[in-house]
């Protein structure tokens, strides 16, 4: 069995996340995003690759959407309403609640720009009706084989990583996630699962970010300094996510520092979003959840609604206004009023699309901005650039991959060269096979396949009882070799071999069965055979008067003498093993040696029949396990003289 991953979007790029995974006969589409950078057909994933005929219902088992950002959900209404997919769609409760807001906002903007409409409000509403909401860690049985489960991902409210399991094959698709918490969302959290495949985002494949405290400190310092000097602070943000985080940060600071300067929200989306946040407490960070009973963190004490008449009211204030990047709307209106005063401050999000005022402000120290032919804004205000980001950094990705230790990993949602670097790191540092496919490519990876087997009673009983063994595993530490003193390093280790005592038996036409090793012979009706090695060879003798040179006439007394001499030689030369002198025989582990008195010993090599007068033949036997030891002893014997 194999898992096939067809990348429809976000392969070696950031934008329109879409991934179709075939796993044990099930096909799941993860995310259905649109690319914000294009207005042509490249805007949407190429759905025709899923099914030539357009019969998506049969081609896909389900669609899973991780969070409400447009590059993850933007193409969904198009896919369901225009392309006609009618199967189940899964997303978390907050995503389901907030996604229509985002989609509607996008549609309106599209409308305003006069682009041709891809979907309508009705489409959005219809599409949302098909959505099945899921909760965190709730296992959903999509059909009888496919299980999915959502895990907390941080990033934005309601963002989730999805675990999918079909039969024995299991995988996780992370979507976007954040491994460090911020003021309002927690860090991604997942169990240690047995995975064949992990598909992870890699927005910051090589960046390692500093502690968020530094960013917060800079932001607070800038705002505080500004309002302390009587200035006004404009914070243009998107409605969801950053606005709430910054607001909680400011609120907390205001409380602690006893500041009385008003904080305003411009009417509209932000207020509405706060309302949703208040209801979705369960999806926020630990701190907010903990204090929720006494105080809802989204019940901002210092925050008021902004009235347009307040724009030019005297005194300091802080204002959150949409949209971010100052592309237009209310934030632009306020910006025009406040920019000329150097007392005022404008904070900019970490990333501004080229062409926006935000981008212009970021790119350098400007004094004038030409809005259009007639309007020109004098910019004297202070600019503060925020560097908050809800994506995990390279270290976070590595940490997650390390924690989950999947058999394979696929990187998506990142820039190609950086992904390549990260891929190398994952392969070299963690030893996990890693891929970063481009759009419309398919990656095939093998998946686990389990065989069901019966177990015999004896095996089950042996499994119930602990059966651990202690052993001292010896190995020679190489570092000691340098100093010319070889020292065997031994360590106590413990093993429990219950499973290895079982033997898997697959008989023709029968179900596989695991039996205990003791039963095996009985089952086969065979006897136990042991392989023994034997070798007979001559050993040099020092000429001594009391031993007659006629070696084949040795009496038993002489044999004993020889053996005990041999024993002395071995005990001098041999470091390991326990040498047992059994009279006419010598035993080291399974190795046995005795004087061979028969001239035509079958184990004697013909070539060794040379000079019989000065040597005595020894016959050796040993079993496979002690082969090394045996040859060591033989070589000692050959090289010494009795």
């Amino acid at each position: 069995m194999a898992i096939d991953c067809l990348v429809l979007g976000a392969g070696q790029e950031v934008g329109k996340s879409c991934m179709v995974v075939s796993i044990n006969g099930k096909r799941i589409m993860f995310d259905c995003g649109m690319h914000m950078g294009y207005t042509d057909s490249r805007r949407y994933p190429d759905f025709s690759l899923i099914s030539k005929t357009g019969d998506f219902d049969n081609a896909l088992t389900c669609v899973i959407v991780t969070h409400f950002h447009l590059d993850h959900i933007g193409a969904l209404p198009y896919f369901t309403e225009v392309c006609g997919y009618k199967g189940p769609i899964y997303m978390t409760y907050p995503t389901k609640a907030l996604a229509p807001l985002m989609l509607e906002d996008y549609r309106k903007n599209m409308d305003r720009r006069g682009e041709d409409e891809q979907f309508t409000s009705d489409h959005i509403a219809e599409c949302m009706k098909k959505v099945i909401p899921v909760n965190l860690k709730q296992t959903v049985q999509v059909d009888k084989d496919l299980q999915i489960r959502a895990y907390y991902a941080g990033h934005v409210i309601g963002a989730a990583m999805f675990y999918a399991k079909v039969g024995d094959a299991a995988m996780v698709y992370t979507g976007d996630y954040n491994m460090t918490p911020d003021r309002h969302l927690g860090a991604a959290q997942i169990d240690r699962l047995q995975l064949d495949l992990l598909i992870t985002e890699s927005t910051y494949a090589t960046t390692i970010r500093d502690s968020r405290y530094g960013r917060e400190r800079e932001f607070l310092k800038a705002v505080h300094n500004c309002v302390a000097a009587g200035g006004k602070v404009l914070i243009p943000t998107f409605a969801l996510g950053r606005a709430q985080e910054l607001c909680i940060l400011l609120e907390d600071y205001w409380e602690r520092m006893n500041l009385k300067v008003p904080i305003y929200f411009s009417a509209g989306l932000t207020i509405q979003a706060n309302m949703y946040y208040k209801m979705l407490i369960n999806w926020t960070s630990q701190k907010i959840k903990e204090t929720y009973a006494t105080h809802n963190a989204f019940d901002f004490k210092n925050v008021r609604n902004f009235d347009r008449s307040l724009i030019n009211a005297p005194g300091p204030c802080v204002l959150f206004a949409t949209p971010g990047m100052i592309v237009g709307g209310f934030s632009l209106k306020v910006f025009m009023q406040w920019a000329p005063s150097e007392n005022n401050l404008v904070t900019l999000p970490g990333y501004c699309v080229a062409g926006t005022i935000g981008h212009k402000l970021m790119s350098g120290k400007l004094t004038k901005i030409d809005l259009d032919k007639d309007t020109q804004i004098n910019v004297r205000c202070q600019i503060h650039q925020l560097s908050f980001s809800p994506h995990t950094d390279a270290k976070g990705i590595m940490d997650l991959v390390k924690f989950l230790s999947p058999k394979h990993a696929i990187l998506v949602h990142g820039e190609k060269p950086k992904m390549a670097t990260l891929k190398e790191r994952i392969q070299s540092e963690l030893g996990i096979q890693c891929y970063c496919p481009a759009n419309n490519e398919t990656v095939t990876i093998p998946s686990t396949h389990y065989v069901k087997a019966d177990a015999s009673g004896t095996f089950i009983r042996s499994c119930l009882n602990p059966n651990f063994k202690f052993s001292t595993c010896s190995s020679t530490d190489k570092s000691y070799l340098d100093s010319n003193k070889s020292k065997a390093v031994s360590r106590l280790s413990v093993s429990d071999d219950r499973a290895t005592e079982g033997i898997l038996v697959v008989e023709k036409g029968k179900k596989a069965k695991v039996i205990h090793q003791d039963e095996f012979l009985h089952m086969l009706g065979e006897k136990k055979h042991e392989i023994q090695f034997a070798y007979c060879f001559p050993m040099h003798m020092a000429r001594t008067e009391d031993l007659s040179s006629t070696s084949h006439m040795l009496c038993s007394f002489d044999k004993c003498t020889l053996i005990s001499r041999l024993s002395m030689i071995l005990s001098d030369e041999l470091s390991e093993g326990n040498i047992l002198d059994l009279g006419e025989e010598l035993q080291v582990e399974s190795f046995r040696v005795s004087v061979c008195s028969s001239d035509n010993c079958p184990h004697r090599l013909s070539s060794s029949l040379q000079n019989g007068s000065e040597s005595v033949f020894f016959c050796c036997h040993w079993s496979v396990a002690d082969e090394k030891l045996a040859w060591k002893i033989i070589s000692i014997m050959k090289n010494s003289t009795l």
Partner: protein
Amino acid sequence: MGMVAELERRQSAMELHIINSIQQSLDNNQPLSFQALASLRSLIINPATPDSTLSSVLDALSRSLQLNRDPVFLHHALKLLSDLASHRPHLSPFALDLLRSDSLFSSASPRLVGESLSVLLSLASIGNDIDAARFVSLCLGPSVSVRQCLLRNAEKLVFRESVLLAVFLGFTRDPYPYVRKEALDGLVKLCKNGDFDDRDVIEGCYCRAVELLRDAENYVRSAAVRAVCEWGRLLVICSEDMNKQDSSDAVFIQLGCMVRDMSVDVRLEAFEALGKIGLVSEDILLQTLSKKVLGINKDKAFKPVEGLDISASAVAGAYIHGLEDEFSEVRMSACYSLRTLTVFSLRFACEALNLMMDMLNDDSTVVRLQALDTIHHMATSNHLKVEKIHIHRFLSALVDSSSVIRSMTRKILKLAKLPQFKLFKLCIDGLLGNLEIYPQDEADVFSALFHIGRNHGKFTVHIIEEVSPEMEPASGGKLSFDSTRVAAFLVLAISAPLSHEKDVSAIPPRIFSYAVTWLGRISYGLSDLMNQEKLLAYLSECSRSSTISLADFKINEALLTVESDAPIPLCSKVDSPVSMPFWKDSGGTSDYHHQEFLSLGKSAAHAEYELGEHSELRKYVNLIFKKVKDFWSLVELGCTTEAFKGIRACKEEVASFTADSPGSSGAVAFTLQYLQVIGMLAKVWGHLRPTKMLNPYGVGKLELLFAKLDRRLREISNRFIGLFKGEELQILDLVLVACLLRLSKMEICCCNAAMKLLLSTVAHVEYLHEGSIELSNFVTEVKKSLHDADSSSSSSTCKPLLFKKLLDSFSLQQFVLYGTPRYIHAELAVPSNDSENPLPFIPGIPASIPLAITLHNVLTESRLWVRISMNEESTQFVFLDLNLIRNEKRSINVVREFTFVAPFYRTPKAISFTVRASLGLECFRENIDQVKVFGGPKCELTYLCPEKEIFLCKSTEC
């Protein structure tokens, strides 16, 4: 009454009925029915059931146990027995015997065995019921719950370590995660209690624990973290010296890998464990503060144990992650474990400080508090280096809405020593801002200002010059004294003369008189330093003249007692020899600590712990001393009884102090002794000093009192070693007072002896007083008058009036214990000797008395005598030469135990007699005048143990 009697009658009838029916069924060899069991239970749990009935219940149960082997029945019987044992403690031995019987405890059913085992354990009566072989075989049985229960309680079952080790280590391989966890916990306990020096075993356990760090279950992983920590520490200890640092680093990194675990518990354990690994090299420590792998650590790999290679990069950013963790517990734990590690490296401390300053922005108050605590800890361990960029963030904590945070911040500020005026001014502004926003903090802000002022005399003078227009009266002649701000500056100003810095130019004297108008509020703030009268005296003194000599002013003495006496350079220069004596010549790594660690080995952590314990104890003890001083003022007023009561209460309090840790016993014993001396002194004083009552005691009584006082004084000055000079001087003060008291009373005075003692004590005082320690007023007076008396006339040394006058100048100083005195004491025993088993002797021939002696803290050079006395007349001394007593270590701290056979020469012609033996320490300063004992000690003895009575009897064999 009738009702009750009727009820009782009925009940006993019912009991009888039940018992009878049960007996009957048993006689017929019928097993007990469940109904019968239920009624038995009702009898057992009814507190009114008489014991006789219960005995027959027990009897019935034991019989039925022999009849019935049905597991369900056995289960119920077990329950009944456990109820019985817990309800009727006096019957529990019988119930337990039954429990241990074949049918239950040794039954073949593991479930029953498990249940009976847990009953036995819950009754805490498992003794030798289970031997190692049985324990192991039960563990190896198929029942998982029994296995878990046994492993959890293995410690209580007390086996040889080797058995436990084998079992625990083996079961870390168990497929059941809870068993694995118990096994790991067992290994941790074993490691803490046990004494392992076999490296193979240690490595084995360590490796197994490391393997389990990757277990699928959270609780197994957290147990594994603990195990890795404990066994890792053992691994470090047993490493060869040259590898110690590497092993320690490796264990640290191994634990550092776990800080990114998904489970909160595991992360908590990991940070706790990180803080426990003491010796970590600076590079590794710095790596924990950087997510990026530092160049120096790029290719660094460790191999503490064969096959466990670990790279230094694994620990990258461990603390960064910990400090921005979602859970405040983890953040706190990270702050705390940083605290212990900052001691080892200044560079690490500096970097960590950066993070701590950021933590002051945390949304959780407890985390902020912990961060401040860590900073405070850095300050006290001299590893705090604040820069201007920090100061802003730090001072913002002064306006925090939480009062504990503000107070903790001020606590750190009190210790601060700032290098630049700019920073100093920022701090003062911060405190003023604090005062402005939170007027309720006034007292503590004043205190902080006062401390800062003392620590920065010159800056203070400078700033006062700047703001003096504000402090001057307004044009109308009225002082703007309603302004708290002015008050704050006044507090700052008045601290200047007490500055720790030398040659601070003066503050205009009028400022001090302005401050007087604020006396109440200021003295409230400074209540930890001085009381209102003292402050007033100080202020008026200062306002009178611009050049103040504080030598004759007592405030400096009072201030000595304040804990934060020495300022800590908050911005210590990196190359200052004071703050970094260790790093400079050790090439940047923690060699000093390294060595210390090596030499202390296993006990390093222990010693650290003790130190902490001591300072805590010292604080309490010093509080007691403070109280004593107050009581003495009562004595001076003549309220001896009241003072005495107070001292007795103190004694009780001190006696309740635990003296578990070695060393603290010295401080406790010292305090008790001191209280006794003061008590005696108070008694004598109250008698001799002219008060309302005249001579309540007769001369004889007084003589006795003096003798007691002398003995106490001798004890306090001779039985403690390790006192500081200042402490010794204060004790000598008391000796002088005692002498003077004696001399001032003509009737009892043995003038020569007392005078001699007085002179020798003064000489000793002079000998001790060489350095910086200032003598008290009283001693100076005594010295002076003695000198005068000497020069004027040599004959009339006995001048009671002069001495009485001298006594007037005495006032008890508050005793402050700085060190940890060690208490010299001994135990004396005669093995197996009492009135029934006397030692044999032959009249007229010396008898030998075997004495088992234990000496604590006795120096080898001290002269010890065994005093054996039969009655007042025949007392004999035997010299105990410590040099002859074989003892391995000459360390003063060791407890010496040996047997000494003392001869008793003058055996009387009697059938039997008793002698009293005791051990005395010769004190060199006091010569014996009155009693001359031939061949005995030349000086007075201080007895180290109570007298021991020894019985001797005429030997029958001759």
